């Protein structure tokens, strides 16, 4: 066997494993806390927890199965075939070649009309995957190699099933968030009155405790999910750069796209923020302080991504 130049990044793998382990740990702790609360104070408020979990499950399953349609319609993207104009032909040509290079099934291709140069991939598995680029990504700002780098990054997201992984990871946060909301409204409207009907009168306390547990779990899982998202981005950068063998082209695309995004007016940016988790480069409006923004961001900093790409470049040149 010839030597390989494509060694996996063990540090990244370890950090990602640890993050997912912690997320699982928080989930277990959350379930235990809920069972304990309901057991200790009677199941009078069990309905709230039940509704939160049922609704959370429904939302997660929904976004799992309809992620492609939701994301495409949110971005107002239109699916295109290879014959639909020169722009579509070009994207299809690049995707065809990258698929053959990576031995993966071809995702569908969509184009969104947007002033923001960006791209995203969605769909729960390789068969359902859709790769979407914006019109301004294609208007000549990026040269062909940079465009290929961006598309290779998105195809790595598809190969890594990042939509499925992130949806499942978000499940915990969704439930905790719903529980907080339900417990809060229960406290406001029904807590006092209903507690009189309970034998131990613990309804209000249970709601308060649930509120507290929910807030803590939500906060912790939020940070962990964002951390996981940043690691997935780094993994996609890495896989994309190794696929094309051109880490520097991806790096220069990142620099250009990030620079362009920062220059776009605020209003467009805020409109696009909910989709961030799937985008190639984040459209943050840059309000929070630097350290806090890093902690909450779905994407690693530009410096971190460029650093990894230059390491890969060195590795390839050896």
């Amino acid at each position, binding site marked *: 066997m010839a030597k390989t130049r494509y060694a996996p990044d063990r540090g990244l793998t370890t950090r990602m494993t640890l993050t997912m382990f912690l997320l699982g740990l928080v989930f277990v702790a959350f379930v235990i806390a809920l069972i304990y609360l309901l057991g200790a104070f009677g199941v009078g408020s069990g309905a709230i927890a039940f509704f939160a979990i049922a609704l959370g499950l429904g939302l997660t399953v929904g976004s799992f199965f309809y992620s492609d349609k939701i994301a495409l319609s949110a971005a107002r993207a239109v699916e295109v075939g290879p014959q639909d104009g020169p722009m579509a032909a070009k994207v299809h040509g690049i995707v065809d070649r990258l698929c*053959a*290079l990576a031995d993966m099934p071809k995702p569908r291709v969509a184009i969104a009309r947007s002033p923001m140069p960006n791209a995203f991939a969605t769909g729960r598995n390789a068969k359902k995957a859709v790769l979407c680029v914006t019109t301004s990504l294609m208007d000549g700002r990026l040269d*062909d190699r940079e465009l290929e780098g961006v598309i290779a990054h998105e195809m790595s997201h598809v190969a890594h099933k990042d939509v499925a992984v992130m949806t499942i990871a978000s499940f915990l946060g969704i439930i905790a968030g719903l529980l907080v909301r339900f417990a809060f409204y229960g406290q406001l409207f029904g807590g006092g009155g209903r507690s009189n009907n309970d034998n131990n009168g613990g309804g209000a306390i249970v709601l308060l405790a649930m509120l507290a547990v929910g807030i803590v779990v939500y906060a912790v899982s939020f940070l962990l999910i964002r951390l996981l998202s940043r690691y997935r981005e780094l993994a996609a950068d890495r896989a994309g750069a190794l696929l094309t063998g051109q880490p520097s082209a991806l790096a220069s695309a990142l620099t250009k796209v990030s620079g362009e995004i920062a220059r776009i007016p605020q209003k467009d940016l805020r409109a696009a923020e909910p989709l961030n988790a799937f985008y190639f480069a984040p459209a943050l409006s840059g309000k929070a302080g630097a350290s806090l923004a890093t902690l909450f961001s779905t994407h690693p900093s530009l410096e971190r991504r460029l650093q990894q790409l230059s390491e890969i470049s060195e590795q*390839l040149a050896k």
Partner: protein
Amino acid sequence: MGFLDTLLGRTKPVPPKLDDLFAVPTAAITLQAAMGLVPTGTGSVCFRAAEGRAFSDIEKDVRELLSMGSEAPQVEVTNDSYGFTWLVCRHSADDVGALVTDLHAVNSSLVDGGFGPQLLCTLVSFRNESGRRLGIVYLYKRGTFYPFAPLGDERRDNALELQVRGAVGADLKIEADLSRWFPVWGAPGL
């Protein structure tokens, strides 16, 4: 890709399968007998050049290796609009065996240098009396072949392609998934 690789976001670059390429000379005989498609003696290897010194050194070695051969085949290097590099080898039309050996030499040099995953496809071209062109494309990562018949103007002759599939199905491992028969417009040597 395994479950663990998915979970950890690791993609293993796919190593190429090389040996099936040697089935081409047999298929060439079949194509000539059954459909009147004659090899033109031209074949090419398409790969994605990686950046950096290591790859360009290997690329240079490959070119020297091919042009040093006893029969001195003509080797030509072109870059297509997608940034892929095509090494085109020309032989006499009746010697498909030697052509395939040359193409294989390119492949093994890249694999030995550690750049096997950069190989995209190889193409052996055919032509019939009325000038219809056909390429037999070999996908390295799948180890399968498919026919590609361009008509010009970015259209392809699907009828001819399916006919070829039927003719050489016994000689070559034909790619079963039609969505992977991607067009190689403007492939040099076709």
